[in-house]
């Protein structure tokens, strides 16, 4: 009952490719997987020769495979990229410590330098300390907001011109669905683009935008890549929402559905009269923000003043900025120093 590879007709098939149901052997799979990513990079002009590119590395499967494939393609196709790994140390004992060990091993395995940026140096708070303050509710909000900014700051410090992230096709399809369900037009328009943040922030690109999660995991498994898959201590069940569940159920019935959702997302035409939030700069730290203060500064301000709930409540439009103003106006601890661009906590 041995099935042969549909491409080379010689070797034993090792997997069924979700995009086209093709049965392929390991070697043909590696070639197809790597060259499709190369095509994505070339077709979308993700990089220019000489670019210094930060590879966002968490030690997880996606970023580990990304680091592997980018170093490989950089050599094979002579992109002339100056790659380095960028990791964030959230300060979660026992979880991030271990995954950072994985990234450190990747540093030697792929021969590209590693830069670690910690919440502690950036914000003067570790996630362990934040959780002690706010408990287990909303801690992921803090972590997500802080991580996004920390990556940008780390990349800027290292003089990167671009950042590559490991977001895969399943992730993109999930985000599209979520933004449709939430009616978030601005994000829906943004989440399908393969390069984001060109206006102001460091451009981020997703070389895995059309790559199935299944293939990333299969690739990592067959190639025996070293990755870390333990759940975060503070959100053991957070990795799967209803949208992800739905995507995976769809995939089980018809794998092509994932690429179809992405294709539909790309085809959305946003009415030009739709009001988009304007991007400005945070008055406090200079990070891009559609509000007076960026989300990280609002959260940080709340933490430092012992009002950690600040900025957590769902607000729309101007609500957030107003909330901040009211809170700092009424808070006894608010001083002039709090409002001036802080050098103490954010130091890049």
């Amino acid at each position, binding site marked *: 009952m041995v099935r042969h590879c549909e491409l080379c007709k010689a070797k034993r098939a090792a997997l069924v490719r979700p995009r086209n149901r093709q049965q392929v052997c390991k070697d043909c799979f590696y070639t197809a997987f790597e060259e499709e990513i190369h095509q994505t990079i070339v077709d979308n002009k993700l990089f220019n020769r000489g670019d210094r590119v930060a590879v966002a590395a968490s030690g997880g499967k996606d970023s580990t495979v990304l680091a592997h494939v980018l170093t490989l393609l950089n050599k094979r196709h002579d992109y002339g990229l100056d790659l380095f790994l960028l990791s964030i140390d959230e300060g979660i004992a026992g979880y991030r410590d271990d995954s950072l060990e994985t990234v450190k091993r990747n540093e030697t395995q792929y021969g590209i330098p590693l830069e670690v940026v910690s919440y502690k140096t950036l914000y003067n708070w570790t996630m362990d300390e934040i959780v002690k303050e706010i408990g287990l509710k909303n801690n992921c909000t803090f972590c997500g907001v802080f991580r996004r900014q920390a990556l940008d700051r780390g990349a800027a410090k290292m003089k990167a011109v671009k950042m590559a992230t490991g*977001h895969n096709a399943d992730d993109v399809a999930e985000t599209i669905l979520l933004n449709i369900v939430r009616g978030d037009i601005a994000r829906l328009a943004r989440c399908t683009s393969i390069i984001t943040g060109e206006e102001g922030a460091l451009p981020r690109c997703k070389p895995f935008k059309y790559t199935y999660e*299944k293939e990333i995991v299969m690739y990592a*498994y067959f190639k025996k890549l070293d990755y*870390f898959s333990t759940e975060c201590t503070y959100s053991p069940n957070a990795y799967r929402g209803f949208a*992800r569940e739905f995507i995976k159920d769809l995939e089980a019935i018809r794998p092509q559905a994932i690429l179809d959702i992405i294709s539909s997302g790309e085809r959305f035409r946003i009415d030009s009269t739709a009001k988009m939030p304007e991007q400005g700069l945070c008055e406090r730290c200079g990070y891009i923000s559609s509000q007076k203060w960026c989300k990280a500064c609002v959260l940080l301000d709340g933490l430092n003043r012992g009002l950690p709930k600040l900025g957590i409540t769902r607000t729309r439009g101007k609500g957030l900025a107003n909330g901040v103003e009211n809170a700092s106006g009424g808070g006894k601890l608010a001083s002039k120093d709090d409002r001036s661009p802080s050098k103490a906590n954010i130091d890049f």
Partner: protein
Amino acid sequence: MNKLGFRLTAQWCLLLWLIRPRSSDYRISFHFIVVRSNFRAARLGVRRADDMHLTLEFGGGLELLFGSQKKHEVEVTSPDDLKEVTMESLLSWIKDNLIKERPEMFVKESSVRPGVLVLINDSDWELCGRLETVLEENDEVIFISTLHGG
């Protein structure tokens, strides 16, 4: 084995002891019952002739549901005492005998949870008939979660 499981097993044993056949086939039927109620045959040191040896491996975070142990050498009996052990019966055996916590993270209905990859002897199970695949002695089955981390 959790407390409830132990209590149920204990209750079963007691019940079965009470209704045990008072004849020479007592040992055989008692053995049969023990295997069928939550005990792992291997743990009792009993190996039935039709037990099948398999190597199971859990990765990508799934190992956390199995006491953080990745590799498991097991003797599997088909739950319905059929001659064949299929992937479907292996999954229900794992659910009843091996998994330590949160089975809903591993199985959904009669199959694996969507997003869990399965390899039989290093090949995608989609190549060989998924749940209907008939397993053979010393086969190696690997389950990898795609659901953890990025």
